[in-house]
């Protein structure tokens, strides 16, 4: 199935029935920020994911890409959600993208399942979507259980030295990684105000290159230290909007 076509179809239907609901971001005072600027497609040579994190005043559409393993006959399901509507969590309001029998969110299986859809998702994020004659940015959110999210990020999982997908905090103080504990802080330090080192998107880009077959010796994931791979041991399958 075509995710792009299904999303456009869904948005057209919402727009035609006046059911499209704006989802405004909030400023530092928690007040909604008006969306006044139409989205412009970045030039073809623009690096990275481009539109994944547009400014708050750019008109946008919020999409979720959910991935989870479950059910009596265990299967991995991929679901696209459109948040700009009433009751976006109702299954009938979502797009079932793929179902595949599987017992675990295994990296290779998920990579294969996602491979035929991710290019379309990248196009959606890059090109945006037209709703009511106005081009809007696509703000994409990954969702699912922690195991599935780790799989998509190529991350080692919740027991890794750097277990958080959002920041570089280490799991617990250890003599082996004392320098990283000092630099990034640990999960156990609950008194610090907020983690000061979010995971940068540029690191995920580096890890994609490091996981490519042509990566030069010394630059491959297996050659990198903890500070280099930051608990990512497979090339990320998709790069969501992260901080940079």
């Amino acid at each position, binding site marked *: 199935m075509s995710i792009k076509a299904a999303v456009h179809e869904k948005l057209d239907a919402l727009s035609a029935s006046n059911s499209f609901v704006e989802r*405004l971001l909030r400023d530092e005072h928690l007040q909604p920020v008006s969306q006044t600027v139409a989205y412009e497609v970045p030039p073809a040579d623009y690096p990275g994911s481009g539109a994944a994190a547009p400014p708050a005043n750019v008109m946008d559409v919020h999409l*979720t890409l959910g991935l*989870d393993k479950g059910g009596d006959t265990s299967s991995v399901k991929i679901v696209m*959600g459109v948040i700009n509507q009433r009751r976006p969590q109702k299954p009938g309001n979502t797009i079932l993208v793929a179902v595949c029998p599987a017992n675990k969110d295994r990296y290779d299986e998920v990579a294969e399942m996602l491979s035929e859809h991710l290019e379309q998702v990248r196009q959606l994020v890059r090109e945006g979507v037209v709703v009511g004659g106005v081009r809007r940015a696509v703000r994409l959110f990954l969702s699912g259980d922690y195991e599935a999210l780790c799989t998509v990020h190529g991350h080692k999982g919740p027991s890794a030295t750097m277990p958080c997908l959002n920041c570089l905090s280490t799991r617990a103080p250890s003599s082996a990684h004392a320098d990283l504990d000092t630099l990034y802080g640990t999960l156990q330090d609950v008194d610090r105000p*907020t983690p000061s080192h979010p995971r940068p998107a540029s690191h995920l880009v580096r890890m994609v290159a490091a996981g490519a077959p042509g990566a030069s010796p010394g630059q491959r994931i297996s050659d990198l230290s903890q500070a280099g791979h930051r608990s990512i041991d497979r090339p990320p399958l998709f790069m969501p909007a992260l901080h940079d």
Partner: protein
Amino acid sequence: MPIPLHLLLGITLRLLRLAVEIVISCRGSNDGQTFAYELAETLRRVVRVRPAPYHGGVFIGRDCHTIAQGCDAICRNLLGLTPEYHHQADRRLWLLWGMLGRTLNRAAEVDAGEVRQFRSGARSFVRLMKRSFPWVSVSPKLHILLHHAPAFLERFGSVGLYGEQAVESWHGFFNQNAAKYTAETAVGSCANLIRAMAVAR
């Protein structure tokens, strides 16, 4: 990257396990085992929830809210087994968790006052847990609750709207309607479901 449903499931389970750990730390493992059975009985008979086999043997999201509402019954089990300050800390944790779980999983926009309350509640919850029960290790889920869920809520005005409930619901749908999509192989059955849903859309 909000995972409100899995935070709800994981942290509710952590709180139930914490109650058993408190008894073990005060009275040893034999009493801890007895308490664990009593706790399971309380959950079944008083709170009226039970683990769902189709949900990996853990409680479903709705039951997690019910457990937080029924925390009085759970905390009463600790009376006489642990020092009063442990009992009070556990009770306070359940009350905070009940409030946080509601905000976290509501698929609606949250007003600014509740957003601020969520951040301060999450901070109080994790700090109280760590200070009152020093053996507790802050897991990635507790870390998300403490730092990243409040930040997401402040930026997007809701966590529940962006959650993973929809994909979980599809598991339920496929379970209930599996007979309609049977095929010779599991892959064929999945393909039948996808086809039927694409046509229905």
